[in-house]
Each structure stands twice: as C-alpha cells, then as structure tokens.
C-alpha cells in the first residue's frame, strides 16, 4: 500500500486531485454548513436587547483576555525562563482545563463560587468572566511560553551587558519581540470567550451574552429565527473585523525608546518574584481549584447506565469526527502551507469558522442538515465542521514554520513526494500533529452548544451533564463529569506518551 502510494505520488495528477478533494471537502462540508445560516435570513432584525448582548459579549471577552494577559505572561515567563521545584507538575496542570468539557467546567465553577461553595459570586457577569478565564487562561500561557522559548536569549543577555535591569530588558526587548506570540494567544482567548455557549448558560444568571440570547431566540415559542440569524450575522461580522485588525498587529514593529528611569526600573525589578508568586497563585486558586471543585460533589455512582451510554456516544462521535478531520485536514493544511493560489483566502475562512459561536454553528448545521441524513451521521458531520478548523490551524502553523529545505533535500535524494512526506515531514511534525489531534478530539468530546442544536434523541456526555445539572441533580452531574475528566486525562496521557516516542 505504502509503496503503491509512493509510486502513485510521482504522478502530479494525483497530488492535484488530492488538493482538489481536500479543498472541496472544506467548502462543502465545513464552510457551507457553518455559514448556511446566513442564507436563511428573512428580515434583518436589530433590537436594543441585541445591542446590549453584543456589548456584554465583547466587554466580557476583553476583560477576560486582559486578566489572562496580566497573570498569564508572568506565569509563562516563570515556566519558560526559570527553574523551580515541581515545575513539571505545574507545566502539566496548565493543559488540564482544556481537557475538561466546558459544561463540566461551568458546573464546577458555579459550584465553587456559588452558594454551594464559597458563596462569593452568584450567577451573572462576574461568574461568566471567572468561567471564561478558566478555559482561556491556558491558551495565553501556552502561546506566550512558546514565544519566550523561541526567542534568542542572547538578546536579553546583550541588554543586561549594556546595563539594562531585568524589568527594563523585559519591557524594551522581550515584550516588543514576543508581541506576535502574545497577540495570537490573546486572539484565541478572545474568540473562545466570545463563542462559548454551553458552560456560559450554566453560570449566566440574568446576564445575556450573544450566544445566550441566540439560544433564547431559538428556544422561544415560536422560534424567532430572524432575530437569531441577524444576531449571529452581525456578531460574526464584528468578530471578523476585530480579528482582521488584531491579525494586522502581529508583525514585529519598530521600537523607539525614550527617557528611562533607570533607578525605578532597577528597584521594581526586585519585585520579579512577587509577579512569579502572583501568577502561580492565580493559576492554582482562580483557574485550577474552581475547575476541579466538582470532584467534591460526586455521589461516587460513576457507572450509571445513562452515563456509560453517553460516554460511549461521545467518544465514538469524537473518534469519527477526528478521523475525518485528519483524513481531509492533513492535505488541506499542506495545501495552505504550500502557499498555492487561494491559500490565503482559505486560511482566512478557516480562521473565521473558528470564531463562530457554537450556538450559531449548531443553528446553521441543523438548518443545513435538516432531514437530509440520519441523526448520527449529521452529528458526526456537525462535529467535523466544528473541530476541522482547529486541527487545520494547528497543523498549518507547524508546516509553515518547517524548514522547506528538508523535504527538498529528501526529494533531491530521490524520494518521491509521498515517501518524503511520510519519512521526513510526518516524523518532524508529529508532536504538533498529535497536539492538534488532542485539541480536536477534546473539543468534540466537550462540545455542548452546537450538539444541542442538531441532536434530537442522541445524548452526548456534555448534554447529559447540562441536563442533569439543570434538573438539579448535581451529584450525578458531578460523577459524570469526573468520569469524563478521568477518561479524557487518560486518553491525553496516552497520546502524549506517543508524542515523545521517536
């Protein structure tokens, strides 16, 4: 089989055919269903309630991103540049909130801060912010950490040999040069906060974000589809403008320094360890502890039939959707990375679809697939549409950074295109590829809003958790969430060990 593919890849026709198939798949199975909703608009509506929801959503996203940056950058700095005891454990902890389904996370955070825990924060704006921080913090820390690790640390040494105190060198050398990394992390956090639906409904109280208002329009009797679609359209348009603006900020800019208060910078540098400790405490007390608080509420009845069924459904669904994403996403990512015609446009479309609120996705998918196929098939395709962009974006990133000379060297040594791909490119991108698979899989397992919109009879585990929790059965919901979290962690650990093997 491999040999046959090696030989077949020699023929350029096959390569082109694969590119065409991948692009067509993207257009018909990802973009069309995702954006289908906008063809269904009857009359454009824009009410005061919508305006308020838009402002609420963008303000929440901005505040969340800002807080993420304030505490995330020092933490990323600490993890990337310093050595301390139990560093490996802390480093591993960062990813955990990504593993827990957002609905379980929402439940846990509502329990921790609410009347069943500390009793400090009731459902509403503040609780939404705390929740969104919990599942976006990792993005900011991880991308900033990567940016720090990629930087040539001789630059900082040069600054200090020229008399710059640590704080001054951080402000004038590190920050300007890490901007791209930090901005892209902030963009991820911002868009995730904007679009999150499932968990937010659990903690929102009377507050209405755009996704919540969309759910409300859709759920009212009779469903107010015009309002729901109008809101989604305007929301996506505003998000796209912000997104494009932020992307234009990615490049490294020319930097000029003015008068420096050397003494002040030097004195403030001594507070570096305070920043370290604050970042660490923030991670443990604001992100980790509330995220895992639901463990306390479990009734230890982990294996009730309903939970087992839902887990099997979720994992099978995620498996199928991930497989489809790999099969079609891999050549698609290769095509985008090869900078062929349209690859810039395709990349932008892919990024835009990552920004869609899951409830809009759900709405669009349910309209697109309505009555066209079996519910299970629709669910798989719906989840593929939701996770495909994440997989592609991760893989494209690493492919565009890869040294082109390597695969050219392989080709010059007589390797056929597919042989060069599987012996050179694949092993090199493997860690990121597996990370992309993990991200895609976990997003499918934990997805709530979109699934809610397409499923009629099939109940995935996040749906079950939301339903149980809405019915006031917190103990059972917690047990289900614990089981899901444990299974997810095991799965991720297994994948991570394969990541390290050569």
């Amino acid at each position, binding site marked *: 089989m491999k040999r046959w593919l090696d030989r077949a890849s020699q023929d350029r026709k096959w390569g082109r055919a694969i590119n065409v198939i991948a692009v067509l798949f993207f257009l018909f199975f990802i973009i069309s269903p995702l954006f289908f909703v906008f063809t269904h608009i009857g009359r454009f509506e824009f009410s005061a309630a919508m305006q308020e929801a838009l402002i609420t959503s963008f303000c929440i996203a901005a505040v969340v991103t800002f807080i993420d940056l304030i505490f995330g950058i020092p933490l990323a700095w600490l993890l990337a540049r310093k050595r301390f005891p139990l560093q490996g454990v802390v480093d591993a902890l960062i990813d955990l909130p990504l593993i827990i389904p957002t609905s379980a996370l929402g439940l846990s955070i509502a329990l921790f801060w609410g009347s069943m825990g500390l009793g400090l924060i009731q459902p509403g704006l503040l609780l939404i912010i705390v929740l969104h921080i919990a599942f976006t913090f990792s993005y900011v820390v991880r991308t900033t950490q990567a940016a720090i690790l990629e930087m040539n640390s001789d630059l900082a*040494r*040069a*600054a200090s040999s*020229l*008399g710059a105190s640590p704080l001054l060198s951080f402000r004038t050398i590190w920050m300007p*040069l890490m901007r791209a990394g930090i901005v892209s992390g902030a963009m991820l956090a911002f868009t995730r906060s904007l679009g999150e639906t499932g968990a937010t409904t659990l903690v929102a109280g009377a507050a209405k974000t755009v996704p919540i208002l969309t759910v409300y329009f859709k759920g009212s009797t009779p469903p107010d589809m015009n309002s729901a679609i109008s809101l989604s359209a305007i929301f996506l348009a505003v998000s796209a403008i912000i997104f494009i603006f932020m992307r234009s900020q990615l490049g*490294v800019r020319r930097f000029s*320094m003015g008068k*420096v*208060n050397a003494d002040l910078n030097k004195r403030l540098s001594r507070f570096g360890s305070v920043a370290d400790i604050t970042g660490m405490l923030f991670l443990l007390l604001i992100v980790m502890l509330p995220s895992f608080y639901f463990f306390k509420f479990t009734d230890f009845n982990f294996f009730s039939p309903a939970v087992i069924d839902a887990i099997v459904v979720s994992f099978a669904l995620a498996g199928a959707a991930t497989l489809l994403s790999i099969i079609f996403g891999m050549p698609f990512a290769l095509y985008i990375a090869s900078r062929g015609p349209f690859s810039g446009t395709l990349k932008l479309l892919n990024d835009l679809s990552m920004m869609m609120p899951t409830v809009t996705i759900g709405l669009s998918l349910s309209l697109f697939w309505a009555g066209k196929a079996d519910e299970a098939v629709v669910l798989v395709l719906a989840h593929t549409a939701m996770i495909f962009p994440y997989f592609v974006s991760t893989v494209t990133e690493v492919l565009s950074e890869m040294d082109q000379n390597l695969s050219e060297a392989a080709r010059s040594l007589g390797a056929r295109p597919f042989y060069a791909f599987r012996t050179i490119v694949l092993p090199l991108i493997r860690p990121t590829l597996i990370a992309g698979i993990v991200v895609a899989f976990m997003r499918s397992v934990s997805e709530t809003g979109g699934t809610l919109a397409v499923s009629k009879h099939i109940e995935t585990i996040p749906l079950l958790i939301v339903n149980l929790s809405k019915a006031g059965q917190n103990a059972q919901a917690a047990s289900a969430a614990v089981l899901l979290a444990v299974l997810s962690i095991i799965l991720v650990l297994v994948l991570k060990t394969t990541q390290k093997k050569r």
Partner: protein
Amino acid sequence: MPQIQIRNASKYYGSVKALYNVDLNIEDGDYVVLLGPSGCGKTTLLKTIAGIITPNTGSVSIAGRNVTALPPEDRGIGFVFQNYALFTHMSALENASYGLLARGETPEKAHRIGAEMLKLVQLADRTDAMPRELSGGMQQRLAIARAMATGSKLLLLDEPMNALDAHIRTELRVELRRMVKSLGLTAIHVTHDQEEAMALADKIIIMRAGRILQAGTPHEVYLHPNCPFVASFLGEANFLRVTFDEGEAQLLGQKVKTKLHGPYIACIRPENMRLDHKGTKVRVTNCRPFGPFFKYDVDFNGLMLSVRTTHDQRDATFLSFDPAEVLYFKEPSEGLEKSLTSA
C-alpha cells in the same frame, strides 16, 4: 582601569567541568585572545567575566573590585555576541544608544553619543537602518559600537568573526585591533581560529577541557609551546617518538644531540623540514601548491609526515631538518594521541 583577575574559578554542568580551577591575570590595555577547540571552556570563561555565567567556585575581579556576585548590568562591560544579538526591532542608532538610555541618560545625549559611535565604526550614513538591512560586516561593527557606547573600557567578544565570510574576516581583523588600540580598550576575544588569534592578540591563552594550558605572546606560544596539544593547535606539527641514550638519539635517520635521557616526543613543524638531495631517503606521496608555499605528504618508512617548502620540490627524494628547531616533550600522562584530542 580594567585589570582583570580570575582566581581559582570552576564551573560545572552536572558532571561536566566547563571550567576547572582557572587562574588568570589580564593587564590593562591588552588585546587577549582565548583560543581553543569547541567545548574547551573559552566561552564559559568569557561569560564568567561578563557575569552571564556565575562560577561554582572562585572569584572574578575587575579593576580591583570583586564582581563575582554582580549581575552583568552592574559590571560596566561591553559584550559582542557570537551572532551579534542586535535588537531586530530597533534601528542602528537606537541599538547604539540602548546602553546609555538604559542607564538613564537623556535621549538627546544618548543619541548624540550613539551617533558618534556609529561614525567611529563607519556607519554614520546608516543610522536609520534596521539590523536586517545591514551586511554581515556592518552588523558586526554595529554590535561593537553598541558595546562601546556606554563608555566601557572592557570589550568582551565571543567569536565575533564567525558569521562573516573568510575574505571580510581578514580585513575586519586589522580594523578591529586598530579600533581597540586607538580607544585604549582592554579586549578579551574568544575564537577557535588560530590564524585570527595570531593576527589580533597581544597575548594568547590556549585552553583545553576547561583548563588553561599556556598563556603568552603569539610568538612565544608558537615557538615555545609547553605541550604537544599547544604545538599542534597553533600551526601544524609532526610528532615522533624518540629515545635518548645519554643525550644521543636517532631521529628520522639523523643523529641528534641533547642533554636529555630516556623516551621523549619530538615535534618538528612542517616548515622546519627540507626536501632536498641529501639527508634521509623518503618518498613524496602527495604535493599540493598553496600559492606562497607547497605542502607535501611524505612517507618515511611507513610513517607519514607533513612538510612545507617555498619552492616546488616534489621530485626530491631526501629529507633533512635543523636539530635546533626540534622541540621535545615528555609523554603526556594521558598518552600522546589522547592529549591531542579536544576533550
């Protein structure tokens, strides 16, 4: 004035000894070159002086002040990094003024001095250029201007010629030494290139495996190496085992007389041998013209020697040497072959 003293400095990375009980004195105004193969500890020693690396034991003092515990920013040094570490997001002038601004100077004064430094390194017309717009040689000069703008009298250079092509390298060597001397700086320069070391140094310090083997003027270390490693690292050397009996021995078929007794290692430089029509019978197996000289591989009873002459002597069949030019070493404790490797 920047007189530097290093006392008993050691640096370990796990079980690897990067520096091992190093003692060193550097006089004010000297151009010192730290020379050795990669991994010999020369860069570690330089970074120890700069404060980028803190030694596990020992002390560093600059101008009589113990600076062992001071961070780099408080040592008053200028450091030129291997790939220059220019600030890519700042213009040439902003790079050159950085050190002064970091010390709290006003932007006017910092930019004025920065511009003067750029003029000094012949970059006056490129003040507004970004580092990536400059050629390799210009980038190096900018790195030097930036390091000197703070008024530091001590310039530390970590393989500053590495990123340049061979032709520019020889040109910049002359320029660099002239600049350092005219500004009255003390310079410590790390390299693995022995030719570069000979061209630049007032004093060469040869290192191997974390230790200093020999220190002296280029002439001294070349003519009087204190061990086979130094002899082979600076220039080329043929090593031959020889045993003296009451000061007499046979070397390459020639009788030599010394005051030594017992087994020794004789070292003859290729240029100290002649190919001629008298002496010991040999066979030339390979001859390469290098322009100003010719290089030969010569077979003496199965022993391969390297010989160098100014004229083409490839047809010669006899070899001779001047016994006065031969160096003798005791067999190193780790054995000759092992002692010539870099680790």
